[in-house]
């Protein structure tokens, strides 16, 4: 298969020593195996996230995203823009839709973009990495490079909110999306399909401003994974990953639970299954170590 190329929008949390830096490490490893070339959009900026609304207003928020698109169109023409972060994807996609449907807004955005010598034309498509995997490769194609099956590990596929709503992945239902379960199965893992908290909100940015309320959400998400026999949680969203992983200790203090469940990215599973090391799969970036995956990662493949 020919090399696939995309304009890459990694997002703030993926940067070196950022809270999701191990996500990017594992994505790089996965893409190397799949022969995908990701070229970062030069000088990309923050999408504004969903939480910036108090002061962002409407146009400034869309202009932030329009700048990234304009940079991609200028430097990487013809390539789809791909984000790994759920919020980056959602916000960029929302801006693109708004700018496409509202001529006044588009003119205004371009007036502001003149300040940085750029122009938004809306040519590049906005896609999430899981869309690339599912639509440009497909589950069967993703199975082919597997050299170490994740057989025997039970994963709760925690989809969360922002890759699922309001846009979602094409062909999936909002209430019970199954793409993550299928990705788990494509690398040989066992998907806990009865997991009933797969689209529950982790509190998002309110994990910071309303910790008690958000930790109740996180408790439900982890508890249900245990109740359904999962050994690990897997997610496509950096904020879901961080919230559900790092607050388990706080939840334990408040609720007397003994949670210690690893929370992984789909890309880490794929990296390990494709023969990636602990480091290449970003498993050394886990706060709660995924021992069973690390054991598979260090195994030597017999040829």
């Amino acid at each position, binding site marked *: 298969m020919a090399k696939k190329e995309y304009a890459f929008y990694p997002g703030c949390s993926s940067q070196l020593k950022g*809270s999701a830096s191990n996500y990017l490490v594992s994505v790089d490893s996965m893409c190397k195996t799949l022969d995908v070339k990701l070229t970062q959009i030069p000088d990309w900026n923050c999408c504004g996230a969903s939480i910036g609304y108090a002061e962002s207003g409407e*146009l400034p928020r869309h202009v932030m995203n329009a700048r990234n698109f304009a940079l991609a169109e200028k430097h990487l023409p013809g390539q789809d823009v791909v984000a790994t972060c759920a919020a980056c994807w959602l916000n960029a996609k929302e801006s693109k839709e708004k700018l496409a449907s509202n001529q006044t807004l588009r003119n205004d955005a371009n007036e502001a973009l003149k300040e940085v010598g750029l122009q938004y034309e809306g040519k590049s498509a906005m896609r999430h990495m899981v869309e690339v995997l599912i639509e440009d490769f497909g589950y069967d194609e993703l199975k082919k490079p597997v050299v170490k099956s994740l057989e025997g590990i039970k994963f709760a596929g925690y989809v969360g909110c922002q890759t699922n*709503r309001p846009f979602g992945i094409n062909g999936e239902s909002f209430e019970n999306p199954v793409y993550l379960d299928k990705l788990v199965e494509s690398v040989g893992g066992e998907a806990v399909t009865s997991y009933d908290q797969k689209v529950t909100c982790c509190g998002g940015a309110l994990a910071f401003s309303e910790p008690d309320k958000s930790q109740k959400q996180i408790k439900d998400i982890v508890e249900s994974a245990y109740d359904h026999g999962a050994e690990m949680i897997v997610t496509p969203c950096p904020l879901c990953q961080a919230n559900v992983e790092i607050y388990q200790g706080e939840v334990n203090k408040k609720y007397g639970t003994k949670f210690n469940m690893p929370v992984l990215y789909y890309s880490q599973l794929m990296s390990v299954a494709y023969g990636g090391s602990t480091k290449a799969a970003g498993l050394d970036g886990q706060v709660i170590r995924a021992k069973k995956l690390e054991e598979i990662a260090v195994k030597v493949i017999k040829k």
Partner: protein
Amino acid sequence: MSEALNQQALASYRNNFLREVEEKVEEGEWVKMCMQCGVCAGSCPFGPHWEHSPQKIFMMIRAGKREEVLQSDSMWMCTSCYNCVVRCPRQLPITQIMHGLASYAHRLGLAPKEQPTRHFSALFWNNCTQTGRVNELKLTLGLYFKDGLVSGIKKAWALRNIGLSMLLAKRLNPFEILKGHECQDKAGIQRMLKKAHEIEARHRGLNG
């Protein structure tokens, strides 16, 4: 400036709060389409924590309860999960309307003063637009220390295990306090955003 904006809005809309929302609030023109089914109220993850569901807020807007709506802390409970949006039978962009109302109340200076998400929301936008990229360390510290030094140290101490584990996992950089990731053209981004705010204020009549 916010008080002047508020007086201006009061004078020009008198008792027609619905029209004020339609003209001043992002996606506000959708409010009249709500059919009061309550699916949004039942779909919100923070449902047990607010006083007014989106459904109630929409009815209150139509009933002209301006102060109660703009002073409500309900909009600030939105986690941006978009459950209400995908379930709304009329497909109202409820999440965006909640953000729009919160933002408007914030601009008029009517939003609840000690609302933690109001504080965090403003902190986040100022953080990410300063250099074009989020400085995660400054964002976290800004949140801990919002009520002063002593309370900040207490909060940081209470959550020290999280900070330490993130540091060990190389997912937190203490040197971000000095300099974090940033865009090369941060000056350009500032100019671009200033322009965007000017244009928006012109369109929405928000020049106080």
